């Protein structure tokens, strides 16, 4: 891997490496170039190097691949590869990348794209938002940076590529959130390289995955190299990252430099929003955003509030950092949006001297306004924001806390209360707007009912530990009346599972969950005709209750779904196909919009600047809940992953582009010691368009938690003249402020 963040490769000498016992081959970018395999497409439609031929673009980029009979031989071999570098100017700051005359980092792009601006994207009506802003009595502006962070899943990325030269079959065992997409990308890359590997002969198997969180959606160079190496030597080849490689070179998340301006009346009626953002994508845009949305769903930034006018613009920028822009447990840039709007609303409240809870209550989109069209074009399906916030206020005794805070402030103690009333946007997505590399973002479920009344269901999404086996079995059980234990859920084998786009962006339940319900309903409908045949009744005269079709008015004349299943294979009527199976590819008519209100109480140690989260109340509304324990588990994990960037995690670089967060000593994950006891509650506002009214919950907490914590810290320090502190709010940052104010 490259020691330099930007350098010309003058030569690579692998001769010593090839002498290391156990080393079978060394592959360089020049070797791959012959097969046109040195570059590959990213899911965002940009190009990324598999291995560089002449220029390295970030520190720790792969430069050569050593294939060896053991990991030790491979490590010795990699250390023996001599690379001659000529260092180049390094661009770390994305603002500098946009300077006039800045070095163009990606000259490989077309002649009309000789700039470090990857794309410009905007949403809303600029002129109307400008005019509304001009007319606002109160305007608050803030620069908010959401730092680069990493999903840091416990299992790093890796795969075993197994090319069988006899059967001409490639099996890829891989830790991926989107196995079908990987299969298709591999097929396209292989076709481009002229390799005899076609899609029906590629089998991608994911097995159990040790955490995904968005980091296992992209295609990494290691995957392509493992496949190429297996093809080269005709044996299975394993590639696995170590922890530092994972932290330094995998797709990052966030890295948004946001400038937001919010306009309101002087008594706090919010009216207009303008947002300008620079998105640092590293040297390649390897986000997994849908094609039409290079900045993801960032324009959900009007949040839970009834804005009249809004305008959002984002510039994607190249720098000498690893590629990425993945959605870390966040439905495509929603975390960034929610953080910005929730911080801005809080700043407004503090600025005009209004209680932040009251200001939110007065500005929420009202229940009777749904379905609600936002000024940036989304149609929120359903919501009822005030009761969720009220429930959180009641749980935490908000009035009592504010009283305590005043008393403590008198005594010079620092305590803060922060609120976040977020709206999420998940369940991508409707095929007219949502695709990744052209693949529409439907998802699927195939159900087979066996003669003995047992069920095998296969889904196009991929669990990473969030309990798909339970949730999907419950959906089918609820629809068809089978006991949950009689239903087996399979996923993650592209030879058997129906095509799907995978699990990320909280899309499993909203999309594949809907497919499971719709496939069940197809089976239920066929079962009705089978029951009619068995009961010698008209199908129109039957009614469905508790897993059985019975004759209307004669509840003792019925057939259970198990009896019907047996008949489907033993006694089906003439003219009807045997069997009881169905498949559904669900194309959602809209996204779903879960929401919630979180309240956080923090105490700040004046001497050290350490922020302690004393209490954290989370009221979530994810529509109809399928499994309460799984939902609570998702919220617990999500809140902890929201606490992490709020107080601890950030990937930083020195001026030479060296990654300074390459170990868990430097990249701080919260442990059980830092994590408070989360207090959870729910409200239920079903999605009107989803077959079972569910909305998705995997990411609400990650999205909603950081601003609640940041708002609490700023609330504790506002009287000292503090308006904003960028996350992570480390003891050093707080101490420096307190020191500056003469307190610490």
């Amino acid at each position: 891997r490259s020691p330099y963040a930007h350098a010309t490769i003058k030569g690579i000498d692998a001769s010593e490496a090839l002498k290391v016992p156990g080393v079978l081959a060394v592959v360089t970018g020049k070797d791959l170039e012959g097969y046109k395999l040195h570059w590959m497409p990213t899911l965002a439609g940009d190009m990324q190097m598999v291995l560089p031929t002449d220029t390295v673009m970030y520190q720790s980029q792969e430069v050569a691949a050593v294939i060896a009979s053991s990991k030790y031989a491979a490590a010795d071999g990699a250390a023996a590869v001599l690379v001659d570098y000529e260092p180049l100017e390094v661009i770390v700051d994305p603002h500098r990348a946009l300077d006039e005359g800045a070095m163009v980092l990606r000259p490989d792009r077309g002649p009309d794209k000789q700039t470090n601006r990857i794309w410009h994207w905007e949403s809303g009506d600029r002129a109307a938002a400008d005019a509304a802003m001009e007319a606002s009595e109160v305007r608050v502006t803030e620069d908010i940076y959401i730092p680069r962070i990493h999903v840091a899943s416990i299992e790093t990325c890796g795969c075993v590529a197994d090319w069988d030269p006899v059967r001409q079959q490639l099996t890829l065992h891989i830790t991926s959130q989107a196995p079908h997409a990987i299969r298709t990308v591999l097929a396209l890359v292989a076709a481009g390289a002229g390799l005899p590997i076609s899609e029906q002969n590629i089998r991608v198997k994911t097995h159990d995955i040790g955490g995904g969180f968005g980091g296992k959606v992209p295609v990494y160079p290691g995957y392509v190299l493992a496949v190429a190496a297996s093809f080269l030597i005709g044996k299975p080849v394993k590639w696995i990252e170590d922890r530092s490689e994972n932290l330094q070179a995998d797709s990052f998340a966030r890295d948004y430099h946001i400038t937001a301006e919010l306009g309101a009346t002087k008594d706090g009626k919010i009216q207009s929003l303008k947002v300008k953002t620079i998105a640092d994508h590293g040297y390649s845009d390897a986000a997994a955003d849908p094609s039409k949305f290079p900045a993801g769903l960032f324009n959900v930034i009007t949040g839970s509030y009834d804005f009249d006018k809004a305008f959002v613009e984002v510039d994607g920028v190249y720098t000498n950092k690893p590629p990425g822009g993945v959605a870390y447990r966040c439905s495509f840039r929603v975390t960034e949006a929610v953080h910005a709007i929730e911080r801005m609303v809080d700043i407004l409240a503090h600025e005009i001297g209004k209680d932040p809870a009251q200001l939110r209550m007065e500005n929420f989109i009202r229940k009777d306004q749904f379905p609600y069209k936002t000024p940036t074009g989304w149609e929120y399906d359903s919501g009822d924001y005030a009761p969720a916030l009220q429930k959180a206020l009641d749980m935490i005794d908000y009035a009592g806390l504010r009283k305590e805070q005043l008393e403590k402030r008198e005594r010079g103690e620092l305590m803060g209360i922060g609120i976040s009333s977020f709206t999420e946007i998940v369940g991508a997505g409707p095929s007219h707007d949502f695709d990744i590399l052209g693949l529409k973002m439907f998802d699927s479920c195939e159900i087979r009912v066996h003669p003995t009344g047992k069920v095998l269901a296969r889904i196009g999404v991929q669990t990473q530990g969030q309990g798909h086996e339970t949730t999907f079995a419950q959906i089918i059980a609820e629809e068809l009346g089978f006991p949950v234990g009689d239903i087996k859920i399979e996923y993650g084998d592209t030879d058997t599972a129906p095509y799907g786009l995978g699990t990320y962006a909280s899309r499993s339940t909203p999309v594949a969950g809907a497919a499971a319900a719709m496939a069940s309903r197809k089976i239920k409908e066929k079962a009705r005709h089978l029951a009619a045949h068995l009961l010698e009744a008209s199908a129109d005269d039957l009614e469905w209750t508790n897993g059985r079709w019975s004759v209307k008015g004669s509840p003792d004349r019925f057939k259970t779904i198990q009896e019907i299943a047996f008949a489907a294979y033993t006694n089906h009527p003439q003219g009807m196909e045997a069997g009881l199976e169905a498949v559904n590819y669900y194309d959602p008519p809209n996204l779903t919009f879960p929401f919630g209100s979180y309240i956080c109480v923090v105490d700040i140690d004046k001497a050290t600047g350490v922020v302690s989260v004393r209490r954290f109340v989370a009221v979530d509304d994810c529509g109809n809940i399928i499994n309460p324990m799984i939902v609570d588990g998702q919220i617990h994990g999500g809140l902890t992953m929201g606490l992490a960037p709020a107080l601890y995690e950030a990937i930083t670089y020195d001026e030479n582009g060296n990654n300074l967060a390459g170990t868990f000593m430097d990249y701080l994950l919260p442990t059980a010691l830092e994590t408070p006891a989360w207090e959870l509650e729910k409200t239920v506002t079903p999605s009107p368009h989803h077959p079972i009214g569910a909305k998705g919950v995997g990411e609400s907490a990650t999205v909603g938690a950081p601003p609640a914590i940041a708002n609490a810290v700023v609330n504790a320090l506002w009287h000292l003249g503090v308006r904003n502190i960028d996350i992570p709010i480390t003891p050093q940052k707080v101490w420096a402020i307190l020191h500056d104010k003469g307190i610490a």
Partner: protein
Amino acid sequence: MKFAGTVDIAAPRDKVWAFVIDPNQVGQCGPGVESIEVIDATHFKATAKVGIGFISARFVVNMEMAELVAPDRALIKAHGQAPGSAVDATAEMTLSDGPAGGTTMDWSADVAIAGSLASLGARLIEGTANKMIGQTFTCMKSTLEA
């Protein structure tokens, strides 16, 4: 990273000068130096093992005496590489007459470390560098003053 300092050496200037421009002599004082190969009068190559925290790497360093003004001033440029790490440094040294017939050496160095040593050892790098510089001068003093 920039480093600078002043050292008084109880030895005459000519002796100090002769020592510092001789790779074989001054090289012995570099911490972790395993071998030194003189390429020509102004170019030499050293192999040195450097450890920072839990990371250690064997660097091959190419050095050039870019400017030599005897017995006053020397400018040395170095480029070293190890698997996954690299170092580029410029060091300047000025000699002047010191107290009691000795020599005063003013030195400064600008060091850029890249790769895993910089990335994984960032927290420890400055302390380690200071320690290594200290060791170098202690060795030089003790050899020259002996």
